[in-house]
């Protein structure tokens, strides 16, 4: 129980605003927004503080026994700060964006309340110290995302929400089964760099392999691995900030993060490679990457295309994990951050397009570059990043992935990365072509005001910021403050065991 108050504060910084917002009157817009931003600010400050303290060697930990042999454990380590930093920064942008996006919508109090709860759950996931705590926050995340998906209250969002619930509850149950099996085998342990299974290994390897598959299915539902991805494209019925949240900040990332935790800190990467379970993961990742990219090619709807793109991109993270060796790991983990930043930009842009011109289909996007230059520019940057054009962020992760594959002599993986990059360009480049080189479908509405942006400033500012971030993350990848550097530190820890 060291410095446990900071951990509580970290969770409360989004939980308390949520609670207060639920009780606020719908009309208290200013108060609500300032509460939200206050929460965001506190959270980012806390994460930064934890970051610095961790480098100085302070430990943060909170534990208490829920039931016999089952512990509720929160702790901070390098990996958790990576993800916590990502989600809290992106939460800031998403909040700003959502304030602009939902300006005229109903039930904003409910939306922002659950939104903050969602972030609380994600931060909880980050600082969970063992599988059971992780599971608690994982289920909590399911519960609080559900009302967000339902926000529009129409038939499509209802279908999406129910489908989401079915998938994730199934996943949760399977995950729980895996945890219980593991618990009955070796008891509950906290996450340790290098894994704890090897140290306590008793059961035969087949049993551990089966448990791994079960855990993978459980967590993979949220990470949207094929064939458990069905809910994600449907979930596009929700408003754009929610999609951004699902894809970049919370849900999908939570799944990927869970797999990272399981492979590195439960099984331990060396033990995992000894068991051969990395091949299972690699197979799943490759399938998902190819399937997602192929499906994305045939989507007419912009958000659907982005959704399938997410399915494939998130599996890069899994691919990176499955490559035994530091380089692959670096590629996977850094992609966790980079993909988040790029994907959130894309969704922000999609939201801006649809809220300004009601554009949802790709063939309506002709000539947007002229009417909405800033958003189009950001979109282009992010899309190019996704494809992996240097010097953008996506390039860095793919580069390390490729290096990792080469290190192990896995030419097949290199081929998959290349093929997927081709597919990525095949589904992104036509959009860019339409945006920049087609005649506009809609003329720019001339505003009476002297100076006016192409859309609401609250929509444009966040997407510009995240686009810039994705550029900077790529350009300054080798600097001391980049995500890459942090990931390198982390990987050094994992492999030094």
């Amino acid at each position, binding site marked *: 129980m060291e410095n446990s108050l900071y951990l509580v504060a970290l969770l409360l910084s989004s939980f308390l605003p949520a609670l207060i917002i639920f009780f606020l009157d719908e009309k208290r817009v200013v108060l609500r927004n300032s509460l939200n931003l206050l929460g965001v600010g506190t959270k980012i400050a806390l994460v930064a503080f934890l970051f610095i303290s961790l480098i100085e060697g302070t430990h943060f930990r909170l534990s*208490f*026994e*829920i*039931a*016999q042999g*089952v512990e*509720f454990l929160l702790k901070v380590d390098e990996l958790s700060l990576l993800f916590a930093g990502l989600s809290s920064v992106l939460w800031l942008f998403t909040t700003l964006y959502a304030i602009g996006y939902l300006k005229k919508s109903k039930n904003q109090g*409910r939306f922002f309340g659950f939104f903050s709860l969602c972030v609380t759950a994600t931060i909880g996931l980050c600082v969970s110290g063992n599988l*059971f705590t992780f*599971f*608690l926050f994982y*289920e909590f995340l399911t*519960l609080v995302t559900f*009302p967000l998906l*339902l926000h529009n*209250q*129409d*038939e499509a969002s*209802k279908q999406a*929400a*129910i489908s989401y619930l079915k998938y994730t509850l199934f996943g*949760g149950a399977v995950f*729980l089964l895996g945890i*219980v099996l593991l618990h*009955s085998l070796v008891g509950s342990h906290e996450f340790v760099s290098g894994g704890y299974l090897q140290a306590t290994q008793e059961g035969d390897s087949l049993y551990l392999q089966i448990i791994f598959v079960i855990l993978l299915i459980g967590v993979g539902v949220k990470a949207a691995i094929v064939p458990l991805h069905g809910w994600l494209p449907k979930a596009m019925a929700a408003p754009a900030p929610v999609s951004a949240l699902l894809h970049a900040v919370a849900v999908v990332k939570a799944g990927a993060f869970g797999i990272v935790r399981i492979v590195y800190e439960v099984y331990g990467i060396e033990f995992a490679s000894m068991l051969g379970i990395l091949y299972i993961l690699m197979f799943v990742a490759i399938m998902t990457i190819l399937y997602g990219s192929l499906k994305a090619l045939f989507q007419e709807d912009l958000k659907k295309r982005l959704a399938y793109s997410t399915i494939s991109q998130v599996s890069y993270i899994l691919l990176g994990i499955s490559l035994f060796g530091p380089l692959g790991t670096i590629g996977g983990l850094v992609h966790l951050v980079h993909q988040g930043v790029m994907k959130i930009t894309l969704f922000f842009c999609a939201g801006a397009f649809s809220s300004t011109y009601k554009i949802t289909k790709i063939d309506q996007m002709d000539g947007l570059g002229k009417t909405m230059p800033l958003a189009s520019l950001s979109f282009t940057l992010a899309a190019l990043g996704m494809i992996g054009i240097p010097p953008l962020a996506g390039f860095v992760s793919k580069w390390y992935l490729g290096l990792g594959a080469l290190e192990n002599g896995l030419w097949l993986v290199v081929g998959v990365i290349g093929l997927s990059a081709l597919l990525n360009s095949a589904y992104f480049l036509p959009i860019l072509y339409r945006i920049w080189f087609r005649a506009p479908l809609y003329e720019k509405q001339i505003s009476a005001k002297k100076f006016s942006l192409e859309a609401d400033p609250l929509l444009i500012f966040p997407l510009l910021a995240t686009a810039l971030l994705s550029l900077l993350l790529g350009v300054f990848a080798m600097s001391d403050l980049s995500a890459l550097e942090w990931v390198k530190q982390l990987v050094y820890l994992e492999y030094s065991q």
Partner: protein
Amino acid sequence: MSLIIPSLLFIPLLFAILTYVFQKYAQMLGVLFVFLWLLLTLIASISVVYEGELLYNFGGFAPPLGISFRIDGLRSLMALLSAFILLICSIYARVYLLASLQRDYFPLLAFLTLGISVLFFSTDIFNQYIALEIIGISAVALSALQKDKKSIDAALRYFFATLIGSGFYLFAVALLYLRYGTLFIDDLALLIENDFVTTIAFIFIVVGLSLKTALFPLHYWLPSAHSNATTPISALLSALVVKTGFFLLFSLYGELFWGIDLFVGKTLSYLGIVAIFYGGIQAFFAKDLKLMIAYSTISQLGYLFLLFVLFSPMAIEGAFLGLFGHSLAKAGMFLSAGTLIYALGTRKISDFKGISFVFPLSIFAIALSSITLIGLPPSLGFFAKWYYLQSAWMQQEWLLFSALLLGSLLSALYLFRFLILSLGSQGERRIFVKEKKIKILEWCGFILSLSSVLLGMFSYALTKMMGI
């Protein structure tokens, strides 16, 4: 602390009389009473934690001759839990019931509390018989409170069931007294032998109390009584009244019959398994919301009876965690469902389509209750099953093990059926009663449901407090 135990007895009695005599102030006194009662049980629990078991001889005569009360961790927790549920249900009733019904409600409630208190704390088996009768009559009277044809008929069935049940118990008490010459449970525990008379007494106790607890073949009275009573009372009946019978059965089984039991425990457990599935299937096909919840009670009570074959400390902890969880969750569920029924003026499940957009808090409460009833973490229901499963695993009771898992699946089926329906799009626009008081009603249910989930986080502390 010598005042605490007698006040656990005379405060309910005093308030029962006062609320009965001064009907004009019944509501005020009643609310005062439930708060006072929560405070008392809280003090009792705290003093048990600090001082260990509390003993009190009434009239100054030591047990075999006089009557004594004993409060240990488990009993104080049970009392605290029931006080909490009583409080919330009474606040609900204060808002929900007509003023004329409230006049009758509070004295009966005080008597119910008295019965529960005596049943939990007394160490004298005849004293507990009277407590059973007090609980029985007050519960029947409460379930007839609405005074319409349906509820009176249901109350009548309930009346006969509870009377037969306590009659059987009385017969067993008579047999035990004639055989061993004492009514004090500790003396009996020392003297008890495995002979014919004792076995017969045991069987009568088991049959009588399982009738009161609505174990599977003897459950016939429960669905009608619980579904036809008015809402706060359904919640009380499901959450507390049936549990009293179980508690008495448990304490007698644990202290007297555990050593001499040959087959009864097993039978009870297997009937429990049947109950889990029977109740679950009936709930799945129920057309009426309250009936569904009532059948779910039958199913959930089945889990409690699984205890009798395992009966390890871990299983006991599991059973009582489950009992707490079910009490809170079921009370919350009944209250929330009652709010919806009140607002819509219908009880048919199919009419609740799309209601989640109108009353999200109530649906959320029902969802939280469902989490506990299904046994998802971190609810109390989860840890109950966790302990049960571990216990069943260790004792290699595979039938129980699989029944526990499948039972959860079944509960998930019928609960999600309702939840998903409530998320559906509304059919035609209907007029809802949307008064200010609905908000309070919704919150009452929500608090109970939420506590059933959140208390799971403290299940280790709870099991330590039980001191098994």
